[in-house]
């Protein structure tokens, strides 16, 4: 039998250790900031094989690896890095895939600086961390472009049927795990394409869509059946899936897709969009290729994006690429509190996005045709920490000023879409309409599991996938035993 721990427990020789300590991180080549701020192609261009191996050699192969602790799905990082060093790239990918079904995605979008890379021993010693995210991406990309593929392995059919609602990262993870075990898996997705936020939210310049489709094709090869344009709760309900359509279990991975607005004066003016609208037009519907694609997107000259998360960063960089002369990011806290990934903030700065931190809009002013023309803002200062532990922004009286804008993208968060949960009796929700699950992903409704943003509120891709992992194991157990707890909390 193949030794799956071939690369486990490796140690560096003293010379290797010295070299690793003396080394510095290899930057990933990227498109020039001026050039890329006018196109939608991917910013990061990837590591060459040589660079990847050099970077992987920087890993100190710590006996108690902090990086693994920092990874929400506990990828065996030192092992996969050792495999890269040895040039055993497919094995590296296989190791990653044991814990993470979509490495090409997470390598690009995980907030590594607060996860694996944040816990890297180099960082503790005030050096730069190993480029774990970049390397994760590297092993996945290399396979995608090469003719040598990881074999697709599935167990004998079990005759059990599982439905997955929502083709986001969470649902796709469950699909992968269950198909591998031989269950018949059907994925129902409301939109016309799979991927969830990966398709409609995160732009091409950060996550090429081709790569999401590649992963979905892999799932199809494993026998997973995809049904698009199916809004569960409308075309059929979860109860019907369980009672009439022969499903033994159902996983709900429907995300947190409802946009929040700020409910300030003038928010219904033309030219004011939710980030969901703006990004969906751009990414799912390819508005940036209008009129080749039919869905238009408004190309503002002076565009303000409200918010400080990944969604805001994606929106403001999209605005820039759509030709904005001024792309402003308006955020009520300061840069250190921004929830967006470091790399995105950094890229946005390089691309010429103008940051208005500690600033909040208070109302929008429009013209006679109902188009936004200006935005009144107020400056903020940071007060006492709030529930989230971040210092609460408070307005500075008398600091109002006006910013001329012809488009505004509101990116102040999303909440749970009640469309599905409302049509599913017996499903317990918390007061934010998120589904309540236990540590096996079980909901209060027998046979129904859930995870991802619909459970956590808007979170991250890797957490959504981690939930999928846990729920897939929970589903296996349930299919085996049929047991269900009386109460979940």
């Amino acid at each position, binding site marked *: 039998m193949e030794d799956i721990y071939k690369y486990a427990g490796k140690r560096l020789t003293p010379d290797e250790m010295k070299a690793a300590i003396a080394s510095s991180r290899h930057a990933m080549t990227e498109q020039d900031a001026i050039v890329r701020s006018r196109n939608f192609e991917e910013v990061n261009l990837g590591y060459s094989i040589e660079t990847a191996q050099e970077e992987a050699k920087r890993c100190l192969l710590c006996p108690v690896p902090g990086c693994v602790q920092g990874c929400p799905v506990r990828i065996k990082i030192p092992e996969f890095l050792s495999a890269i060093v040895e040039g055993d790239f497919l094995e590296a990918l296989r190791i990653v895939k044991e814990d993470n079904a979509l490495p090409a995605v997470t390598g690009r979008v995980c907030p590594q600086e607060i996860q694996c890379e944040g816990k890297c021993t180099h960082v503790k010693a005030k050096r730069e961390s190993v480029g774990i995210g970049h390397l994760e991406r590297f092993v996945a990309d290399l396979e995608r472009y090469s003719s040598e593929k990881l074999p697709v392995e599935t167990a004998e059919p079990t005759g059990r049927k599982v439905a997955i609602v929502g083709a986001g990262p969470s649902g796709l993870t469950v699909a992968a795990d269950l198909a591998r075990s031989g269950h018949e898996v059907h994925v129902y997705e409301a939109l016309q394409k799979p991927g969830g936020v990966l398709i409609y939210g995160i732009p091409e310049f950060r996550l090429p869509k081709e790569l999401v489709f590649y992963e979905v094709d892999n799932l199809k090869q494993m026998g997973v059946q995809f049904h698009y344009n199916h809004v569960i709760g409308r*075309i059929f309900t979860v109860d019907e899936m369980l009672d009439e359509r022969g499903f033994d279990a159902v996983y709900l991975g429907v995300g947190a897709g409802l946009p929040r607005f700020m409910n300030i004066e003038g928010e219904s003016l033309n030219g004011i969009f939710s980030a969901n609208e703006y990004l969906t037009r751009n990414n799912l519907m390819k508005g940036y290729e209008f009129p080749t694609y039919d869905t238009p997107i408004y190309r503002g000259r002076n565009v303000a994006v409200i918010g400080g998360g990944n969604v805001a960063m994606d929106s403001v960089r999209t605005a820039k690429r759509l030709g904005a002369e001024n792309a402003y990011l308006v955020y009520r806290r300061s840069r250190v509190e921004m929830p967006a990934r470091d790399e995105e903030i950094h890229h946005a700065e390089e691309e010429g996005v103008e940051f208005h931190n500690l600033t909040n809009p208070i109302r929008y002013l429009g013209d006679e045709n109902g188009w936004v023309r200006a935005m009144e803002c107020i400056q903020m200062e940071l007060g006492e920490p709030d529930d989230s532990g971040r210092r609460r922004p408070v307005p500075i009286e008398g600091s109002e000023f006006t910013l001329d804008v012809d488009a505004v993208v509101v990116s102040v968060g999303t909440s749970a879409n009640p469309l599905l949960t409302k049509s599913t009796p017996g499903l317990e929700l918390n007061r934010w309409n998120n589904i309540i699950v236990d540590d096996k992903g079980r909901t209060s409704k027998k046979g129904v599991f859930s995870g991802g943003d619909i459970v956590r509120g808007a979170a991250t891709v890797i957490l959504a996938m981690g939930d999928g992992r846990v729920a897939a194991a929970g589903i296996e157990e349930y299919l085996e035993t049929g047991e269900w707890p009386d109460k979940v909390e």
Partner: protein
Amino acid sequence: MNRIITIEEEVPNVHKMVIDAPDVAKKCKPGHFAIVIPDEQSERIPLSIADWDEDAGTVTIYFLEVGVSTMKLARKVAGDEIDMMAPLGRESEIDNYGTVVVCGGCYGVGAIYPIVKALKEAGNTVVTIIEARAKYLLYNEEVLARDSDEIYTATSDGSHGTKGKAQTVMKDLVDGGRHFDRAYIMGCTFMMMRNARMAKELGIPSKVYLNPLMVDATGMCGVCRCDVGGETKFACVDGPEFDGADVDWEQLFKRSAQYVPHQTLAYQHKKCDIDHCGGV
């Protein structure tokens, strides 16, 4: 994907399409709509569901060619496949109110049918009024007549029925002593506004079926937000049916005009391509 069973042009620029969609047909209710996507490059087009047949497993829609995506839809032939997501929206509020007046214009002449039928089944006396610019643009009269107690037509040029609009007939009837407990109005925004305002003037509570811009149509994007009774509503999930008297029509018009320059540009850009004019 869903297969097109039949497609025909009922009257100039009003297309009727019957689509194979057995699961959808089982769940349709009056007031529901669908999102239709003709091809990979197309917009997601919201269209009212005009009829369905559970046994045959089909759904019917009516649409006008107004932009590139609807142009492509109109050029489809029987047997072609399209993407369809349905049913969407809240179902219509239907009860036995007594006597109801139902007004249809534009695509609404076709798509108001499920409401007429449901009102009739609920026991109402149903008075249906359909409007068009001229006689040659009127359609569906016989179908609607089957489930209506009375049917009237109005044409702007007077070539058929009353000269005027649906609201002209509504007002004439009320002036002549008729009483209506409710009005149901479906058509283009302008038609719904006119008729809803008349209903309000005549003291008739009305229901309208808003058709603002939509993208996903599941509550995710918020482009369809409209002001109804002083509150922001998403037409796709809170509607499309709303009380006509509460709708902020001015705002609806302004918001609907957001992409008109884009659409005009794209239509001109694509028309030649799609219809092969001036080509080989």
